[in-house]
């Protein structure tokens, strides 16, 4: 589903954000990118989303090589990738319903599809009763659920989440993780960048640890720290 081959990303010719990373993520996997700030997690997310192109190496997402994709086809790639961010990125003037419907409107989905899909996905994230609220009338956890609903409403092949629990308290974070886990169980590949130890340790999913732009560990059913585990090469 996602494959990186010898990927290096250098900003402004000096800052090396990602260095010689090769990895492969299968369809339906749940993968954590872990590591301290500046280790390259977010850059990997941006590269997969083709917000950036690699300086070196190649990236395949859903069968397409990002650097060979003409710019008019980039939107098509993004329709198969849902994204969730730490800061939710909701439109403050639109209701919960409208925020989710917006994602379908702008890719030209017909109205009856929107009327059908949006309530469904709002029910999935547990916000059916708050469809008419504005984002500032919701808690942080609820806002993140809206943004997950928006990422998932188009049934993407992949959901990319960049620090989705970064702004949330631990109890709320657990709810968000349950939700991402449910989405993963539908067969959707989930890739999540985080530095939340508790979550990674509780989930016991594949962990790809990064340090200064390099993959230092790739471990299935891993934990955040490596103290009691051997380093496993991919």
């Amino acid at each position, binding site marked *: 589903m996602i494959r990186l081959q010898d990927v290096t990303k250098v900003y402004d010719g000096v800052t090396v954000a990602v260095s010689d990373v090769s990895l492969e993520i299968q369809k339906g996997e749940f993968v954590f990118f872990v590591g301290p700030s500046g280790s390259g997690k977010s850059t990997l997310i941006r590269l997969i989303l083709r917000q950036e192109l690699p300086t070196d190496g190649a990236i395949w997402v859903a069968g397409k090589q990002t650097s060979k994709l003409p710019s008019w086809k980039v939107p098509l790639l993004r329709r198969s990738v*849902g994204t969730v961010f730490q800061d939710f*990125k909701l439109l403050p003037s639109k209701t919960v319903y409208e925020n989710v419907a*917006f994602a379908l409107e702008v890719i030209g989905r017909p109205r009856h599809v929107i009327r059908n899909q949006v309530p469904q996905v709002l029910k999935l994230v547990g916000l059916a009763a708050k469809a008419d609220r504005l984002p500032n009338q919701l808690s942080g956890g609820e806002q993140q659920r809206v943004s997950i609903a928006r990422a998932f409403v188009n049934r993407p092949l992949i959901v990319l989440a960049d620090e989705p629990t970064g702004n949330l308290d631990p109890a709320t974070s657990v709810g968000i993780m349950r939700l991402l886990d449910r989405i993963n169980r539908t067969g959707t590949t989930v890739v999540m960048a985080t530095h939340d130890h508790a979550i990674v340790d509780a989930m016991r999913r594949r962990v790809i640890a990064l340090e200064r732009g390099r993959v230092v560990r790739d471990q299935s059913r891993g934990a955040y720290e490596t103290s009691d585990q051997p380093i496993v090469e991919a």
Partner: protein
Amino acid sequence: MRFQYLLGQAAANLRRNVLVVFSAVVAVLVMLTLVFGTIVLRWSIDQDIGRWDDNVRVIAFLSDELTLEEIDSLQRDLQVWEQVEGVEYFSKAEALDEFRELFADQQSLIDVVEEDPSILPASLRIRPTAAADYSAITDRLVVIPGIREVSAADEAIDALVARSDRLRTFAVWIVVVLGAAAVILIANTIRIAVFARREEIGIMKLVGAGNWFVRIPFFLEGIVEGLVGAALSVALVWGVSGSIAELFSTSTSPGALAVPVDFLVRNGLLILGFGAATGLAGSVFGMWGFLRD
């Protein structure tokens, strides 16, 4: 539904920055009013020149030494000149008749020319293809031996032609300077609209909205601004076209200068097209570098 959405976005953008949009529309209005006004003005001057055209004659007074055959061959030579439409021979006798008619009330003058026939020479009266050509014809005539003197009908033609040319230059400069100003002002409104909606655009791109889907509302916004300015200027110039036409006119009959409706329609459409193009140019310029992918 998509089209509705795009139009709605453009309308929302326009509402959001009423003042900035207003300034862009006014810039287009001023520019195109001057351009359209100039077009109407030139039309009226060309009408004037046209009226002169039929009456303009270049008169080549012939030396008395020329034989009839020589005059005949000279006439045939002139006939083939590009700028010449027709040549008429005017004999001494005819000149005298004309003189008598013109100065019928001044018998003393008539007496003088009748006594000395060399005073009134024979002449070739040349009708130019266009009034403006008369000076070219004059220049060629004066060097021909046997032609005593060349007289052209009027310096007024010169003045009219020069005025028409000056107007054209003026119009070109208006288009260049005010056109650039209008494009920049429209680009500015587009930039502000893009900035005001940057969050929304970011999300649109994240969820995979097509590039054109993101851009079209801004193009529409620019085109609407250009069209509104152009429409106002067409209405304005149309309303006062009669007065504009009479501004520099030498015509004595005031009603003769009503600008024909089909002329106004044709050029009005041109102005509308020009306004839309200005708006589109402004949008492209305003979005340059933004909204890549």
